[in-house]
């Protein structure tokens, strides 16, 4: 017991010395909590590219740390708390399931700034950020609308959360903006990463006539299945053009570096960012890249034109008129869904088949 006490005292002393030694020359400590492995080639990989970009640009001014494969269970809170206790001043928690743990830890560390991706609850030192992936999804829809011969698109979906529902909606609206005969079939696999099921889901969609596919999952399985079956598909989260050159039309990618840079710069300047950010193409937080030569020139041109409009702030995907599945106006002309409404959307637009799971 005595030994334990002296050990504890030693630890406390070491911690104290550490904090006393801290001065202006110390690097800004930033940490990232990832839900998947950094090599997942998708969601986590994209976040880690952002982290690396900061490390490369700011050099010794920042010190970055990451923890990968953190389950969204009771374990998350411990990891986040540990990172805060270890002196990280900026902590990014990059998955929805970290919302409650982040808020809990933030209460105990008022001087640390937390940034939670994709959530909806903030606090004085918890800021929300997200990417409007529905914008590149809309652009992908424009291309799909041009390319589809059978007028049937397929969407392999993970979980019925608003993020995924609005990507399905945007993809469909994009396609119908150039080809009103388009319908979208949706298959849910109830997983972010399950190549076997994603593959079978893609096969089911192709079997039902879908000839252009998009997925909101974390592997390239859908794209490669499309290649095997001679139909087209897109990359998601990261550039997947190398996987299936004969099937890949374009990739919807997340670009986190600009946002992470801004947060780092503000913190280095002594004024940590505390405003929520929901950025898109305009802010450089996502993009449609690697548009393939398979895409007809007219389609590529239409997508590029719409992208320019979005970047200039002249076009909003969720501006009315938007018809619901019953064909009636869900958003009348002249109205635009608010960010809050888009962020909690749980209904399909006209052209999507089936219904959102769990919703009447």
């Amino acid at each position, binding site marked *: 017991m005595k030994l334990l006490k002296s050990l504890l005292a030693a630890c406390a002393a070491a911690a104290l010395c550490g904090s006393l030694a801290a001065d202006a020359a110390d690097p800004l400590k930033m940490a990232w909590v990832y839900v*998947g*492995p950094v*090599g*997942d*080639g998708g969601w986590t*990989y994209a976040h880690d590219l952002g982290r690396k970009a900061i490390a490369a640009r700011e050099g010794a001014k920042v010190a970055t740390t990451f923890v990968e*494969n953190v389950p969204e269970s009771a374990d998350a809170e411990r990891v986040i708390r540990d990172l805060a206790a270890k002196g990280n001043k900026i902590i990014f928690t990059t998955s929805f399931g970290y919302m409650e743990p982040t808020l809990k830890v933030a209460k105990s560390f008022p001087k640390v700034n937390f940034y939670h991706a994709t959530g909806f609850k903030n606090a004085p030192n918890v800021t929300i950020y997200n990417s409007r992936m529905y914008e590149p999804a809309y652009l992908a829809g424009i291309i799909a609308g041009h390319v589809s011969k059978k007028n049937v698109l*397929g969407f392999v979906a993970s979980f*019925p959360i608003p993020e995924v529902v609005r990507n399905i909606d945007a993809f469909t609206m994009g396609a119908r903006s150039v080809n009103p005969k388009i319908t979208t*079939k*949706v*298959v*849910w*696999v*109830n*997983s972010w*990463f*399950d*190549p*076997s*099921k994603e*593959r*079978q*889901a893609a*096969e*089911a*969609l*192709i*079997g*039902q006539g*879908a000839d252009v596919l998009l997925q909101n999952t974390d*592997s*390239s*399985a859908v794209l*490669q299945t499309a290649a*095997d079956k001679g139909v087209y598909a897109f990359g998601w989260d*990261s550039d997947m053009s*190398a*996987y*299936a050159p004969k099937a890949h039309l374009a990739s919807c990618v997340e670009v986190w570096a600009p946002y992470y840079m801004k947060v780092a710069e503000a913190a280095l300047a002594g004024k940590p960012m505390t405003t929520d950010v929901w950025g898109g193409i305009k802010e450089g937080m996502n993009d449609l890249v690697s548009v393939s030569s398979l895409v007809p020139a007219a389609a590529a041109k239409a997508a590029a034109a719409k992208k320019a409009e979005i970047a200039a702030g002249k076009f909003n995907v969720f501006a009315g008129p938007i018809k619901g599945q019953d064909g009636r106006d869900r958003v009348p002309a002249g109205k635009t869904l608010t960010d809050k409404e888009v962020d909690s959307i749980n209904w399909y637009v006209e052209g999507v*088949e*089936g*219904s959102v*799971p*769990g919703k009447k």
Partner: protein
Amino acid sequence: MTLASLTPLFASAIGAAIPLLLAALGELVAERSGVLNLGVEGMMLLGAVTAFMVVAGGGGLTLALGAACLAGMLAALLFGFVTLTLQANQVAAGLALTILGSGVSAFLGRGYSGNPAKLAFTELPIPGLSRLPLVGPALFSMNALGYLAVLLTIATAWFLYRTKSGLILRSVGESPVVAQSLGLPVISIRYAATLFGGLMAGLAGCYYAIAQFKMWQEGLTSGNGWIALALVVFASWRPGRLVLGALLFGGVTAFGLYLQAVGVQVSVFALSALPYVATVVVLAAISRDQRALRRNAPASLGQSYFGM
């Protein structure tokens, strides 16, 4: 449902069934000798990452296949040493092997994800037959590993029931004490069966990495090793039923997704549960004949045996 819509459904079922069948066949042989190796998932992952690394390093498909099998066998050898030589509990060792295999494969595979496989097994349609309705694309347009799986199933069934070695293997699983008293090298036979299990799991991993998904990512097999294990029990340790079980599982999964795609108004969560529920229901229905079960279940399954 028309014939035209059933054809892709059938093909999808077969595609999902083949890797399950491969891994389960190996486990079936191991279990028939009395060795319960729950580490199938880990061995599959090792096979997958090895195959991917070999082709990424410029190796050919045959080399990758061989290396994947070897990787599976190495893992099985470790399991065998711990459980057969050192008499450790097979359930715990198998679970430990799964953890070890997923860790080692993730570590080795760092830097390999994010790129497609440089080479892959492609479909080899058999002229004429592959155009048959319903079964054509499913059975006669597989890749080399698919055809290999069919051959290996037949060979395994033949080995188990038609050869003396098969009889010996089964008797070791039935009663190692009796087998030993007849002068059979129980431990060596169990080692051989365990290694075969590793080889087949490696092969299944290879199928995922360079035939079906053509990529590597941590946890690529996404729990299919557990399904393969369940299928062995489902099949009540008979290769023929294993084929049915793998097809049932792959088929019901495909069917659930098909129902979603055609827009049937049933909860997607219920549809996703279909393959598991179907497996349980069918198992309960076919297990009623208790004597047949007893005949096939290896009596000494999972129990350590100390041979001199």
